[in-house]
């Protein structure tokens, strides 16, 4: 129980959280399975109780943070967490993304000049936070958040927000360098989330009259993120069409898959030549996993006529049996293998 309180203090949680987390731990400890569990599991349980308490108070604590503090693998934490939620019958609210954005942004060491942070890289915290929140909201609306770990999306959004506030000086800075300067770990998927977010912004830019003519790319669109976010609601509506009802239609047409996107891309190319006088047709608003072509087609399995009571021929079974010669060979090989370790390896 002392470990529970210690963890709460390390995380600088309000005092009321400690009592709740301790209560959960005591509740869990009443179950025989938990009492008999290994010490490692009990230590993980400490983290689980603290995490559940934080979630219930909308305190943005990630599982990764707890695992880092407790020196445990996410797999081990995951199994204990799921078990304890089920055991205690708890309703644990989802991680509050807005609070996580605020906490995460606050951890970036970019708000004060320092020897490692050039003056032109220093940014106002409130401006950066506000823009990051808007970008995360945009990501969520365009299916970039659902089913994904939240932190890489926030990292990508923070980076874009920071870049867009002073693009002239910051466009040359990469995501990796940004995280290093800010003294923050770079999550692996953040690069991929960044590309997805940029693609969304580019689509939106095609529907903003004064940006359409500029033929932006993933680098130059950053300069206009402010404008895009200002009009994001209407731009999302015009740049994307709801893909929820259209996936079936597209799949039924053999050449139609990706047609919506194809039209959009073709439209871009040809309209680019016409100085972009008309916007490209709206792209499908779908999660990225639904926009990518399937890796392999799954053929419909043929209807099986197996009854389960068919006769089994001897020949079919005998194919699985070794001949006496094979048995002897196998035994010889096994004996040789067992004898081999006793022979010293040559230098």
């Amino acid at each position: 129980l002392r470990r529970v309180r210690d963890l709460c203090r390390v995380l600088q949680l309000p005092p009321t959280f400690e009592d709740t987390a301790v209560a959960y731990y005591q509740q869990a400890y009443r179950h025989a399975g938990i009492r008999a569990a290994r010490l490692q599991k009990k230590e993980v349980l400490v983290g689980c109780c603290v995490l559940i308490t934080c979630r219930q108070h909308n305190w943005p604590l990630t599982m990764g943070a707890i695992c880092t503090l407790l020196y445990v693998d996410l797999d081990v934490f995951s199994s204990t967490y799921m078990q304890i939620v089920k055991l205690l019958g708890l309703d644990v609210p989802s991680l509050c993304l807005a609070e996580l954005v605020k906490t995460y942004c606050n951890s970036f060491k970019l708000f004060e000049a320092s020897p490692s942070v050039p003056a032109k890289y220093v940014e106002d915290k409130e401006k950066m936070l506000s823009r990051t929140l808007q970008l995360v909201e945009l990501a969520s609306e365009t299916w970039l958040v659902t089913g994904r770990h939240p932190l890489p999306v926030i990292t990508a959004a923070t980076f874009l927000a920071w870049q867009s506030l002073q693009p002239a000086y910051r466009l040359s800075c990469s995501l990796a360098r940004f995280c290093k300067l800010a003294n923050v770990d770079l999550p692996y998927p953040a690069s991929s989330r960044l590309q997805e977010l940029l693609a969304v912004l580019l689509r939106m830019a095609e529907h903003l009259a004064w940006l359409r003519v500029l033929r932006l790319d993933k680098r130059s669109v950053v300069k206009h993120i402010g404008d895009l976010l200002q009009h994001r609601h209407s731009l999302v509506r015009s740049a994307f069409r709801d893909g929820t009802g259209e996936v079936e239609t597209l799949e039924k047409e053999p050449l139609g898959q990706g047609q919506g996107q194809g039209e959009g891309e073709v439209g871009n190319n040809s309209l680019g030549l016409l100085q972009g006088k008309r916007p490209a047709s709206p792209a499908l608003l779908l999660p990225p996993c639904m926009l990518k072509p399937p890796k392999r087609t799954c053929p419909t399995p043929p209807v099986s006529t197996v009854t389960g009571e068919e006769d089994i021929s001897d020949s079919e079974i005998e194919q699985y049996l070794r001949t006496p010669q094979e048995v002897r060979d196998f035994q010889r090989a096994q004996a040789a293998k067992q004898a081999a370790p006793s022979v010293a390896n040559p230098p």
Partner: protein
Amino acid sequence: MTPGIPIFSPMMPYGTGLTPQPIQNTNSLSILEEQQRQQQQQQQQQQQQQQQQQQQQQQQAVAAAAVQQSTSQQATSQQATQGTSGQAPQLFHSQTLTTAPLPGTTPLYPSPMTPMTPITPATPASESSGIVPQLQNIVSTVNLGCKLDLKTIALRARNAEYNPKRFAAVIMRIREPRTTALIFSSGKMVCTGAKSEEQSRLAARKYARVVQKLGFPAKFLDFKIQNMVGSCDVKFPIRLEGLVLTHQQFSSYEPELFPGLIYRMIKPRIVLLIFVSGKVVLTGAKVRAEIYEAFENIYPILKGFRKTT
């Protein structure tokens, strides 16, 4: 700001805690039996309706002729008319309803014609999804009824692997049906990988025959399907954040751990893994009908999160 709330459709009402809403599940009958029962009822009622329509026409003629008589007679005929239309079962709709059956709908549950096969249900009603979950894996167990020497089996069978330091069972595989078996020294066996109940049974029998051929007095006792896994695709994206909000008591969605939402349905007792792409995995069934029933239960709920704008 939370990402989901401005986007999601109005909150779905909570269920009773057993079966997710909105489903018109009646009593404890499985959906297959219910649909069959209602199809029979519909046929009977269609015949009755035809007869009653003729009677109504006669009654209306009488009522029109007797319009100057007491109003109670008119009320009676009107009530009879309304009562008749209200008797139609809710799952089967008349042509006047605006919702149309899904195009290309075929009998929902194609099944091989075997004694073990569940009865093929009737033509689906309008609320039916028209999507059939495909079975992907069947796990079954059987008792071979004798003690086994695993070393001998591993020595004399081509398709066996045995590493007692790692796992205390022989792992055997056959090509048709493409399955894997775990054979224990107690004589118990687990068969996995089959795509249907019948294939699982056939595979288990083949493994038993192999063990017999190796010289053991193997029998085939207490064959039982322990778990069935199915999967399907609803073909539209799903706002998992919204689903976990409205069905919190059944759902677990932790994107930090797993990209899918884990939905623990109470009736039938099935676990569903629901992904943002609309793909759904159903597991925990002992019979095929539970998979189908669970999917038919979840489909209207998922449709509720279809429109995002």
